[in-house]
């Protein structure tokens, strides 16, 4: 790979945390119940097709998207549907499956080489096997609309977020499935596939498929965010659609063609300072978290996060693994008031500003807790967000346009290019403790309702 086309990301920040996962994969035993959670999917209104007491195979449809019935969601395991869990206003929270004790029964799909299939066949296959939901689209960062074709497909081959799983390690577990997945996507999209790799990253199995372009990136987080890579490779212009997909989900699509079944187990990095032995686990989508985390955490007062500390979601201890999760992080809740905390020298506090003496120790790893370190205030400081957002976007002005509900300004300032995670570092550094990602999320929803 020639190095001269490496894209250097200068803005950003690597939050170094304690509790990185050891490269060691444990096969977690399948839990008694597996939940499929409609809330994992943005903007989805589910319509359930199964009833309690019904037996299902892995790969059988559980529910569909009411607004787009083509998109189906399948059971990751076989067993008996024990319950459709409902919440307030009968909103569907989960479809609970009592798993088979003697192995998973898979529904059969044809084993075929995707390079010999038409785009339409692949599209149908992904839809009926419940794999379509792995394909995300921008703008909006939701499940791709199967009726629209993208201008390009972007895959980030590395994750630069704090304590993120090593994707090279995960991909090299199933290189063939990854390769087949890429081939299927290339065929399906009929457009270039851009694979973003870290400088020096070596994926043995990089498929020499036609249409796959490899780009190397260098620099701190969020260099690994696919949104940042899109911005630097081929930015989204008004009216355009791009697809993004996570390498682990590419592998699941690859399995569908190589093995002829919807096998949705995935490798999850369990990380964080509160985890006794941070390492990788092979688990089922929807698996009960207790089966992974039990006995593995230091004492109580923990926060369990699906995803990383920047844009993951807090879940209760008895939750089930979400559809897209590749990482679990456990932190201490920082709910202890601190005496004169704003005045102390702060050798153990992490800050991008150099107002705490900790900046003298650059390589230090932190065991951060969830304290906000101050209260929310109006915007005061300027130039902070710009330091961690490697995009040609004026973050504060975009946020203010969203707060003012100025749709036209939002569009002009580039809301189509971003999703929440791209602004996560802005939220981290914010002196005024503003919920930046939440504002972006509101903005995206406004835009979506508008179009």
């Amino acid at each position: 790979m020639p190095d001269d086309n490496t894209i250097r990301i200068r803005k950003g920040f690597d939050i170094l945390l304690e509790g990185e996962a050891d490269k060691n994969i444990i096969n977690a035993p399948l839990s008694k119940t597996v939940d499929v959670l409609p809330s994992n999917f943005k903007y989805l209104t589910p319509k359930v097709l199964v009833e309690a007491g019904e037996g299902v195979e892995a790969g059988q449809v559980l529910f569909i998207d009411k607004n787009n019935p083509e998109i189906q969601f399948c059971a990751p395991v076989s067993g008996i549907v024990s319950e459709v869990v409902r919440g307030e206003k009968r909103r569907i929270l989960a479809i609970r499956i009592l798993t088979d004790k003697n192995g998973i029964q898979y529904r059969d799909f044809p084993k075929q080489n995707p390079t010999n299939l038409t785009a339409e066949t692949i599209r149908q296959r992904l839809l009926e096997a419940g794999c379509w939901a792995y394909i995300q689209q921008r703008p909006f960062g939701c499940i791709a609309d199967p009726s629209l074709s993208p201008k390009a497909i972007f895959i980030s081959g590395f994750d630069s977020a704090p304590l993120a799983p090593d994707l090279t390690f995960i991909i090299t577990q199933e290189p063939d499935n990854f390769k087949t997945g890429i081939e299927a996507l290339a065929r399906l999209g009929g457009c270039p596939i851009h694979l973003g790799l870290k400088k020096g990253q070596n994926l043995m199995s990089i498929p020499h498929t036609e249409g796959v372009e490899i780009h190397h990136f260098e620099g701190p987080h969020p260099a690994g965010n696919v949104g940042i890579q899109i911005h630097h490779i081929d930015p989204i212009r008004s009216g355009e659609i791009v697809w993004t997909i996570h390498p682990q989900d590419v592998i699941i699509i690859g399995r569908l063609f190589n093995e002829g079944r919807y096998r949705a187990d995935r490798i999850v990095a369990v990380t964080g300072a509160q985890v006794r032995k941070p390492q990788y686990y092979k688990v089922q989508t929807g698996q009960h978290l207790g089966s992974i985390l039990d006995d593995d955490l230091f004492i109580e007062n923990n926060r369990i996060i699906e995803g990383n500390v920047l844009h993951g979601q807090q879940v209760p201890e008895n939750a089930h693994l979400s559809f897209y999760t590749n990482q679990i992080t456990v932190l201490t809740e920082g709910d202890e008031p601190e005496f004169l905390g704003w005045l102390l020298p702060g050798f153990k506090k992490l800050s991008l500003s150099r107002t705490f003496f900790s900046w003298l120790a650059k390589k230090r790893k932190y065991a951060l807790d969830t304290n906000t370190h101050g209260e929310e205030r109006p915007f005061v400081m300027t130039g902070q967000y710009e330091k961690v957002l490697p995009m040609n976007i004026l973050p504060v002005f975009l946020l203010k346009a969203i707060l003012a509900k100025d749709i036209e300004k939002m569009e002009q300032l580039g809301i189509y290019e971003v999703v929440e995670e791209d602004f996560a570092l802005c939220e981290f550094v914010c002196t005024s403790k503003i919920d930046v990602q939440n504002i972006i999320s509101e903005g995206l929803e406004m835009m979506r309702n508008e179009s």
Partner: protein
Amino acid sequence: MKLLRNLLDNVRPHFSKGGRFEKLHYGFDAFATLLFVPGTTTSGKGVHVRDAMDLKRTMITVIISLVPCLIFGMWNVGFQHFKAFGMETSHFENLIFGFWKVLPMIIVSYSAGLTVEFIFSVMRNHPVSEGFLVTGLLIPLTLPVTTPLWMIAMGAIFCTLLGKEVFGGTGFNFMNPALLARAFLFFAFPAYLSGDVWNDLSPEAGHALVDGYSGATNLVMFDTNFHKLPDGMSLFWGFEQGSVGETSVLACLIGAFILIVTGVGSARIMISVFLGAYLVGLLLNVLAPANMLNHSMHTPPHVHLLMGGFAFGAVFMATDPVTAAHTATGKIIYGLLIGGGCVTLRVFNPAYPEGMMLSILLMNVFAPLIDHIVVERHIQQRLKKSK
């Protein structure tokens, strides 16, 4: 420490909803959060960890960066006083004299301004902001030591009320509150802010003013004949008369260093202010009438940077993030215009020798316009790329 916590926790119910002093709860919060950084945690969505920096930390950093100016200012108050009486005193005596003169100014400024903040927190039901922690110290530093205390209180009240709270509090004001206080006093009580006011001339037993003592500041002198100014080095060190905190360029530069290293103050603004003034100073040199060698247009540009409140304004006033331009490019334009404007005002408007204050306030008003132009250009660029 535990004791204090328990005490706070015990009285907290009185201040929360339904309690006796419910209305005062933001006032209570202000005290409680000053003592203890609250144990609030991030919401379950969005980031789970936060940078340790908050507005309190920002403000305390600015205050720390003001300490060199403050200490030097106190020393200089004593130094100038004893010099006027022709007395030989030690540095320590100078400092102590100044300390007792400046301390009441600081106390009055803080108490007057914070009272307004607290009243507004009750009336408008918003949290007490940390902004006044810096404003309260800036006000006395920009005034002559002879300013009557009641006047300082009025300035502090005026700027908090009309400079900030009427717009919604810190973060919503469009003019630098501390400078607004100074401008208010400057125009309302001109006799107290210009002329022979810079020096504390309270009589000393057994001493009389030295012969030929003059209380005129450099800015007045500069307008008549800039050749009579003290040499550059003493302007730099700050052994001259002036408002409490602004005389020493060195102290301001130490402050600037702290602000830039910690990332609290914008180096971009500071440098462009200095650059703007220097360039305009040079330009005026070129244009200066050749037959009037004492004309102020002949002033060497570097003297402008050392004189009056220029350095103090550039470092501590122009960089106020709320009232400065918000975009990176905007900051450079804003800074250049402040520097250039200051020199222009000084040279061409002898009625207001201190151009820095007016120049910054003027640019505060223009900052949103500068930003607007920068943002529009940014949008145009984005559009062009997408074609």
